[in-house]
């Protein structure tokens, strides 16, 4: 990548918007995932009895089971959310930026 191309892309407002928006989204989702996981694992380390509570009177199923399964489903849903947004928003923004750059001849390397 030449210095000119770099600066053209860097100063493109659409590129700046894409990067800002996508980074914010990706980092927020990462933090949500980390928070969920560490809440779970810290509960196990400090208050395991919470997860041992029976789901309903007379049931042997503990709260921990649906919570654990929910962790797995939650991880998958988060990835789905990211892919949905990336496919429908970020990819389009990127295509626009690339088309604009191609018009200016900035992609010819």
């Amino acid at each position, binding site marked *: 990548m030449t210095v000119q191309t770099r600066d053209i892309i860097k100063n493109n407002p659409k590129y700046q918007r894409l990067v800002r928006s996508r980074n914010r989204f990706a980092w927020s989702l990462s933090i949500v995932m980390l928070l969920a996981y560490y809440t779970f*694992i810290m509960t196990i380390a400090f208050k395991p*009895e919470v997860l041992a509570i029976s789901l309903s009177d007379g049931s*042997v199923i503990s709260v*921990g089971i649906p919570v654990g*399964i929910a962790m*797995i489903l939650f*991880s998958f849903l988060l990835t789905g959310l990211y892919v949905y947004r990336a496919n429908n928003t970020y990819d389009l923004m990127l295509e626009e930026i690339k088309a604009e750059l191609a018009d200016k001849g900035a992609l010819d*390397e």
Partner: protein
Amino acid sequence: MSKPFIILFLFICGALASGTIKGDIERRALNIPAVVMFFIFVSGTLMITYWAAKRTKTASDFYTAGGGITGFQNGMAIAGDYMSAASFLGISGLVYLAGYDGLIYSIGFLVGWPIILFLISERLRNLGKYTFADVASFRLKQEPIRVLSAFGAIATVLLYLIAQMVGSGKLIELLFGLPYAYAVILVGVLMILYVTFGGMLATTWVQIIKAVLLLSGATFMAFAVLYHVDFSFEKLFSSAVEMHDRGIEIMSPGGLVSDPVSAISLGIALMFGTAGLPHILMRFFTVSDAKEARKSVFFATGFIGYFYILTFIIGFGAIVLVFKNPEYLDVAKQSVSGGFPIIGGKNMAAVHLSHALGGDLFLGFISAVAFATILAVVSGLTLAGASAISHDLYANVVEKGVCDQAKEMRVSKIATVALGIIAIMLGIAFVVGLAFAIAASSNFSVLFLSMFWSKLTTRGAVVGGILGLSTAILLVILGPIVWVNILGNAEAIFPYKYPALFSVTVAFIAIYFISITDRSARAKQDRDAFEAQDIRSQTGIGAKGPSSH
């Protein structure tokens, strides 16, 4: 070229298999369906290898299947890499033994994936070519970073490989009655054939086929378990609690994670270790662009999560159907230790369950799948290790990046054979935990900061990476697993089983301080190149697309 090999190989397989019938009858009668299904798998995958060999001409074909794998296929292959025999038999065995704790473990293995998707996968595809060292050395000085990454990769691959080989030897010994050494050699030779002839294309397809087989086998098993309890989870869990000698304790967190330091440390190793496993990272270069890389992780996360839910049901099913079943009881062991030990130990719980559910035929299927799983995972690992040697060390360091493809591929094939032989010879007990800790401390920290931190310099990455790597190795040696269990000392010098919290911290702090105090000319060059790298990582502009076939 491959045809005579295949014929020769089938002959060897036949000779090895027939030789066992006489030897170990008292251990387990030879399971004919298992052998037949295994033969079908081996011949099928060797045919794929033959097909792939004809399509593997360039280095790009060899390392990344020409970048022509789709997101869905790659997601399946990634899931296949992750769903090793160790995780199938190990996690269902852990559920069988400790109940809920098994679920905690699998959640730890899963939660790294969303983070890889959000932060790593697209950047990785946009920046890299064949190995993760391509990314880490994108703007830093080639030689030292490549050498460091290659060592991190080889260390991770070898540890992982040895753990798989040991497991496979024991498993095959038990399932097929094949002597341990033969089993390890058989796995080693098959894996060398897949990788040297078929490269990434064959390795990926072997992995996809195995993932389909494993997922369908596990689905059928979980379904049969649920059928047995009339599709009532209440009944499944209450019968398990009744059967298990730990009773209601299996429904809640037990001893797996007891203190917060271990909890955090294990979490870090599992989460970041995944993003530093060379054979997994390499899969991101087999797809055409960032979009497909993203889809791969989505599918992989889905398959892996589904698989872990299945293993949880399978583990509980095994408690109900295997725990006190006299057919699977290890009588000799029971007379010594009491309790209800099963033949082959807890890791065989899923295998015995398959027999309890579907007789010899289903046992045969699950055994063949377990063997196929080991083969596929060791192939992926070996390819990643061989690429670190041929692409990073040989082509980019020894030959300074000017090396013709044919030569590079030849080195890669020699490296594959060498790694295969080392893995066969080192069939000794080892720990996968160490592989994850090294992956998190050295590979992940350097890779991550090279993509996200503009002030990272070559010197910082090299010194910090080496410190992270050596801290991880040292702490594992001084920790309870090696110091107490293997070396036989009374008390561990380092009290925690999982060193990642400390070794990753050491790596990050060292990289930070050495990079910010680095005033060399190279450091300026490293920092100045960040913007261009970042633009490429965000947009894919300048990244290589798939090669046409």
